[in-house]
């Protein structure tokens, strides 16, 4: 059997097999073992992939493994027990399905494959967002389902139009949606149809990437999902959608490319400023982090819109940094929520006294773009790319947004530190969960060396 298919199926099958044992401790180790096997299988496929896809496979595998590790020790609280998907085996199978569907996105060689992968993520994550069965979680799941279904339908419409353009341009139907074929023969295709098709695809995938004004589902879904799922949604799903946008950009040329880049600059600028402003108004840490995702997604869109080699490098580097930093922040707040039974900022005073609080603080430092974390370098590179491209308006908006988000992060850090006192009623966070959080923080720290390696596509 093809190794790629095995690597895609492994997370889901592993989660299903891991639920078979009647003993809890065996189930735990089986789930972790199968997750490790899934990572190993994904790594074995790396030589078959181009460097962009390989980079995303590595990120998806590591963050998904950490989320599985975390979920094995801190399981989300179930508020509505008769929600028929609210059970441990179902949770881990949905998590495995989510992981597998993200791998479909990056292993695909055509836009049809990418769409199937993105669509499959919606299928799995709707239940994961509403997993607790609480009222707001279910409402967030509904909102997510409706808005993302319309988003991916728009993308599918674009893909169908691109297929039509390919067929009209003389491409064989089996290759009409492959980006390598489209990039090679793009100029022979009818330009008006290609332009509309690529714009629709970009807008559709931008909905999943949480870019403003299609972002309305993101803060609700990311804040109401269990912490480990929020880590995957913010760290990975948004990255997968941006991966799809990068592939859309790869087949554009001439005036079509200019239109796509301008669209990305507008969406990115709106996202950074709206995300940063709304971060200042939040009282819940998970919701705060969700708006931070909107802001960072916008920053990556700006870099992709600038579209110079340095800007594309910076965009990819920022995605890597964001995936690990945001995953560490959501996992850390999950450990905090387990102990404090709340994510309200005013309920979390004195957080820095605790080990998990220090890890959360470290992830906030990473998200603020402060050294020694890699996000400092990636944000700096995006600014340099904007200066080189003379995108002064976009640069001004991005710098303003960075200043606002820094202020919001500093306020959050101060609010969770001040008036600290001992809380004897707190639960201890399980060691496995803290291992997952610590590993994510450590990897976010190690990302600072990425530009000095040859990991990122040039």
């Amino acid at each position, binding site marked *: 059997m093809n190794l790629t298919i095995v690597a895609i199926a492994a997370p889901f099958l592993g989660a299903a097999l891991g639920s078979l044992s009647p003993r809890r401790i065996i189930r735990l180790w089986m789930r972790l073992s199968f997750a490790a096997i899934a990572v190993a299988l994904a790594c074995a496929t790396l030589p078959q992939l181009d460097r962009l896809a390989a980079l995303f496979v590595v990120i998806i595998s590591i963050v998904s493994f950490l989320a599985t590790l975390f979920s094995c020790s801190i399981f989300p609280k179930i508020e*509505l027990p*008769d*929600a*028929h*998907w609210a059970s441990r085996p179902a949770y881990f199978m949905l998590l495995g399905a989510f992981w597998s569907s993200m791998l479909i996105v990056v292993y695909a060689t055509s836009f*049809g494959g990418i*769409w*199937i992968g993105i*669509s*499959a993520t*919606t*299928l799995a994550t*709707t*239940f994961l967002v*509403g997993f607790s*069965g609480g*009222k*707001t979680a*279910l*409402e*967030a*799941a*509904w*909102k997510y*389902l*409706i808005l993302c*279904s*319309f988003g991916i*339908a728009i993308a*599918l*419409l674009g*893909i*169908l*139009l691109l*297929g*039509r353009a390919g*067929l009209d341009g003389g491409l064989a*139907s089996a290759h*009409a*949606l492959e980006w390598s074929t489209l990039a090679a023969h793009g100029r022979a295709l*009818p330009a*008006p*149809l290609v*332009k*509309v098709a690529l714009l629709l695809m970009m807008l559709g995938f931008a909905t999943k990437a949480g870019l403003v004004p299609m*972002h*309305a*589902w*993101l*803060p*609700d879904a990311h804040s109401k999902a269990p912490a480990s799922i929020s880590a995957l949604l913010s760290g990975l799903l948004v990255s997968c959608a941006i991966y799809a946008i990068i592939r859309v950009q790869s087949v554009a040329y001439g005036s079509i490319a200019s239109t796509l880049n301008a669209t990305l600059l507008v969406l990115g600028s709106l996202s950074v400023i709206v995300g940063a402003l709304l971060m200042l108004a939040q009282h819940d840490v998970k919701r705060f982090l969700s708006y931070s995702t909107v802001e960072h997604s916008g920053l990556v869109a700006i870099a992709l819109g600038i579209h110079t080699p340095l800007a594309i490098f910076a965009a990819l580097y920022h995605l890597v940094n964001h995936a690990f930093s945001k995953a560490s922040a959501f996992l850390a707040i999950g450990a905090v929520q387990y102990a404090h039974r709340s994510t309200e900022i005013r309920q979390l005073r004195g957080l820095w006294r605790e080990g998990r609080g220090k890890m959360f603080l470290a992830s906030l430092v990473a998200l603020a773009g402060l050294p020694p974390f890699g996000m400092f370098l990636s944000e700096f590179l995006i600014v340099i790319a904007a200066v080189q491209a003379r995108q002064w308006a976009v640069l001004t908006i991005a710098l303003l947004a960075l200043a606002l988000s820094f202020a919001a992060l500093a306020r959050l850090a101060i609010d969770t530190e001040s008036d600290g006192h001992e809380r004897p009623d707190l639960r201890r966070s399980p060691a496995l969960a803290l291992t997952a959080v610590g590993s994510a923080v450590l990897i976010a720290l190690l990302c600072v060396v990425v530009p000095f390696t040859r990991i990122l596509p040039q």
Partner: protein
Amino acid sequence: MIDTILVLSAVALMLDARLRSALIVYLTFTGATLWLSFPREQTAYSLAFFATIAIVKMVVSPLLIVWMVRRYHVPENLTASFNIAWRIAVAIAAVALGAAVAHMDAFTHISRAAAVFTALFSSTAVVVLHRNLLAHMIGLLMLGSAISLAGAVFAPGLSGATELADTFDAVISALVALSVARSLIAFDPRLDVRSLRGLRG
């Protein structure tokens, strides 16, 4: 003729606020789109996908909606968000916009483009014009049917990929949405979208 049936049923769905008649009109709309999107290349693969889509959209989904209404005593009023004058205005706008988009340079050489875009805009309008979650489900199912039609009209040569995508879409709309709606009944038996306003995107 079939295009007229499609557009009239889309308009009726935007205006109607009663579940039973909306379901009947939905079946007409979906029947018309399925008629137009019947695969040209009748391979076992394409026919199997088409049969799956047809069964999910024409039989399973409507039956599940009716089952949920009877089992949980959900009101059959789809709760219009706007009065009839506004709904008529939106319906006219959706049809006019569909025709206008079909006249863009990119689509002038594609027949039935107007029907596709009208169906797409109408499905979006059905969600916007009603507050009941069952109406949103019908809107999602309409959207899936509109995409099936778009596949048949825009890219008939890509039938395999389109039908696979359609099947995914139908499953998401019908089964996932129904599961979530069923759980939401515990908190709001009227399934009114107003209860979602506690969330601020």
